[in-house]
């Protein structure tokens, strides 16, 4: 091996060790339990329990259908917003990006809570229905299939948008113009040119949304009824209530298998590179496969049919290339839907009442003072901050060298390194959390700050890795060459040239790790409460009992902190 190759291996070692010891090994060890009896012999009895009474099959089916519909709604509502974001001019882009990124990076938990308020008996939707005279008494909107779908879609649309934007931004705008000069109506140009070219983004977004939705438990637990129970809730039940590791392992295996099968299908059809947004539009591996050909023919036919209708009606579309007003209005609605939970939760937190109501009455800071003087809340907050800071530091220290190494590799070794580093993204968080819980119990790490940092680092690693790659790709390698030609050794080049130039990007990547850790519930879920609690865990425990104004106040505080961090990160990035 050449010395260069050795140094790449060296740079990848910390990431490899972390993932091997606390990701691959624990999952392997834990999933094994699914096939072991009490004496450690092989058995299929746990697996066969899945056939029992149809319950588990029902739950799995529910999980799949809910995830399917959430995916459909996320793509349908996200596509126009992504289109607007990708095609806006510089100023417009800043505006749209802010309103799409802010919800994206604000707490999952808080946004799910907000729907309890919005859809509650005393919430704004019911208040509006009553005021408009549409109904004469408050309707039960919560604890239903619709509430779960709304809550989950709300959380996942930003994912879909950001994944699609990555691909759409790479679509050459003159292609649509060219189609126009060749005689295509705008609607034909869209279905024949733009839609086919944006498909890798759409399928990548669908995959990410589907896999993430499949592992959800917060929204179905807080917004759904027993009929909307999803597989992850069963896993939690098996672990924390029934302490049945063996069957929990089987359920985790089922969840993991579903995710991996989806991923494998996606990889066959589209190719993994579309996930990171690094796919060039023209390199879709099976770009000319039969399935794609059929899809293109269908899309083209739809475009032609719509164009013929428009022709018959004598509609004349706007002549100049630009964003159609209707698309922008639709995108505006999507943004409103994204921001609504955040906007409605805040006023509720200032109520002086002991219950939730809309509009809020007796405004005051009563609940804020209660949160800020409670030792339990304060210690949870302190612990969360320390863990988040440590997670950010650890993740960056591991991801930066790994990203450097990745960019030096090529071909198979590059794909292997990439697959390894982003693998935690493909495993539902709950599977990681339960596996770590199983291993930590033996190591005495359950509920410790160290344990939390390890778990959070595993979860944050793929995001930080992708962010750092993006930063490094914009770095002009000729600066290093210039430094070398001026007499700087590789180490001094890194210290005096490379790192200072990329530092802002790295810090913003670190802030994202910080946010992910601050909002992570899965890993802390099984630890005891009390002084060992983290902020999300406190909020979750509180919410599963009852949703009170106290929680709204705590959520608003978390929201404020996270927004500040996100805006700081965005500032740093734009100043690069």
């Amino acid at each position, binding site marked *: 091996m050449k010395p260069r190759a050795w140094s790449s291996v060296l740079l990848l070692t910390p990431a490899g060790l972390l993932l091997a010891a606390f990701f691959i090994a624990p999952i392997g060890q834990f999933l094994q339990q699914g096939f072991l009896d009490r004496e450690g012999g092989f058995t299929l009895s746990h697996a066969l329990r899945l056939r029992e009474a149809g319950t588990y099959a029902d739950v799995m089916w529910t999980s799949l259908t809910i995830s399917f519909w959430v995916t459909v709604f996320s793509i349908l509502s996200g596509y126009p917003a992504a289109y607007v974001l990708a095609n806006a001019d510089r100023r417009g882009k800043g505006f749209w990006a802010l309103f799409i990124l802010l919800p994206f990076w604000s707490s999952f938990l808080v946004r799910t809570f907000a729907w309890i308020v919005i859809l509650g008996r005393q919430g704004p939707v019911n208040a509006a229905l009553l005021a408009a005279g549409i109904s004469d008494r408050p309707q039960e909107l919560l604890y239903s299939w619709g509430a779960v779908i709304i809550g989950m879609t709300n959380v996942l649309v930003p994912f879909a948008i950001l994944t699609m934007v990555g691909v759409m931004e790479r679509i050459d705008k003159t*292609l649509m113009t060219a189609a126009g000069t060749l005689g295509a109506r705008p609607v034909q140009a869209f279905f024949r040119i733009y839609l086919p070219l944006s498909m890798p983004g759409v399928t990548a977004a669908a995959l990410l949304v589907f896999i993430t939705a499949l592992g959800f438990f917060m929204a179905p637990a807080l917004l759904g009824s027993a009929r909307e129970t999803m597989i992850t809730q069963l896993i939690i039940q098996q672990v924390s209530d029934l302490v049945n590791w063996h069957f929990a392992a089987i359920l985790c295996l089922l969840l993991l298998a579903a995710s991996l099968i989806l991923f494998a299908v996606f990889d066959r059809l589209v190719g993994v590179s579309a996930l990171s947004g690094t796919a060039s539009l023209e390199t879709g591996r099976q770009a000319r496969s039969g399935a794609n050909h059929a899809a293109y023919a269908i899309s083209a036919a739809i475009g032609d049919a719509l164009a013929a209708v428009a022709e018959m009606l004598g509609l004349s579309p706007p002549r100049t290339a630009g964003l159609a007003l209707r698309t922008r209005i639709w995108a505006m609605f999507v943004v409103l839907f994204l921001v609504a939970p955040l906007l409605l939760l805040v006023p509720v937190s200032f109520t002086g009442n002991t219950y939730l109501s809309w509009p809020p009455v007796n405004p005051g800071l009563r609940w804020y003072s209660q949160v800020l003087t409670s030792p339990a809340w304060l210690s949870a907050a302190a612990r969360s901050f320390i863990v988040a800071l440590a997670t950010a530091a650890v993740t960056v220290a591991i991801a930066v060298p790994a990203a450097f190494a990745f960019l030096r590799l090529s071909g198979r070794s590059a794909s292997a390194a990439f697959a390894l580093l982003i693998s935690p993204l493909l495993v539902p968080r709950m599977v990681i959390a339960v596996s770590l819980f199983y291993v930590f119990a033996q190591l005495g790490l359950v509920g410790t700050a160290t344990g939390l940092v390890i778990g959070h680092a595993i979860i944050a690693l793929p995001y930080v890795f992708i962010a750092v790659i993006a930063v490094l790709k914009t770095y002009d390698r000729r600066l290093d060459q210039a430094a070398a030609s001026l007499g700087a050794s590789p180490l001094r080049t890194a210290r005096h040239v490379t790192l200072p130039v990329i530092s802002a990007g790295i810090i913003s990547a670190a802030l994202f790790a910080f946010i992910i850790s601050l909002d992570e519930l899965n890993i802390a879920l099984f630890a005891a409460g009390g002084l060992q609690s983290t902020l999300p865990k406190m909020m979750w425990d509180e919410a599963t009992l009852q949703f009170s104004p106290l929680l709204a106040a705590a959520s608003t505080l978390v929201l404020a902190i996270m927004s500040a961090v996100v805006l700081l990160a965005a500032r740093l990035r734009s100043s690069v």
Partner: protein
Amino acid sequence: MSQPKLDIIGITKRYGHATALEPTSLAVEAGEFMTLLGPSGSGKTTLLMMIAGLTEPSGGVIRLDGSDITALPAYRRNIGVVFQNYALFPHLTVAENVAFPLRMRRQSDDAIRSAVARALDLVRLPHLAARLPRELSGGQQQRVAFARAIVFEPEIVLMDEPLGALDKRLRDELKLEIRRLHRDLGTTIVYVTHDQEEAMLLSDRICLMNNARIEQLDLPTALYERPKTRFAAEFVGESNILTGRVEPAGIVAGGLHLPTAHLSLLPGPGAEASVLIRPERIALGATGERGLAMTGIVTEVIGLGGTRRLVVRVNDAIELTVLTFSGDKPVAAGETVSLTVAAEDIVPLASGKP
């Protein structure tokens, strides 16, 4: 006189207070190769985009074969456009790209097949019909873009710096190819470029643009030999420009009397004026022709392969660039030479911005 193919009347484009194109009129004859030549920001691309229907004019009228198309959307104009980056659809094969405008016009599959084959034959790429654009070289992509723009027999073809992204060798080759295609097809072409050599080689007429308006509209030779303004003289070809006072029969600049054969172009005596002398119109040695004769010291000799460029210092105020053939009698720096210029080749420029 027959009506022009394309008649542009007072077309203008403003963005807020900025003017991308002052009210401009231009008529292009059927079968003509018209080049819009100018530096970036001169308005040439804006004008082209308005002809294509891709930019909405702030005022004015565009007529194609006498009928007003100003309000017609791009897809109804029947005007082919070759874009600078080609804008080939990356998910469609070469044949499908070329077929696209015909499909939009709902032609039968048979008609499409034969038209596509003919167009690809014309650009000499029939063997690449099944390839995707990314599998082609830059020059091949350019030809496909051209085939796609002419396959539906548009009224006019617009080309926006179509050779801009190619290297010099390929550019030279494709220039000749475009010239051949224009001759063979007899299509009306409006071509945008900032490369004066390209404009000279290809055009029937050149429309030189500067500062959002037409600077000079002329035959290529006329634009080169009789530029009307200092900008035109400097933008097209190499130039010596001398500024002085108008006298009877010429101007006096730097102590030299420069007689010109184009007296009608000069302002009244005593006014300030500039004249142009092309470097290759200055002859070394005495020719006995009526005109300007002077001597100077050669300060620099630059070999350019087939030609040689000399810098000759005539006096403290005047330094001239002279172009000679490499086969001429060798000249060394420091030598004193005599120079002559015919009065015909001393061309007055319109006063105005220096």
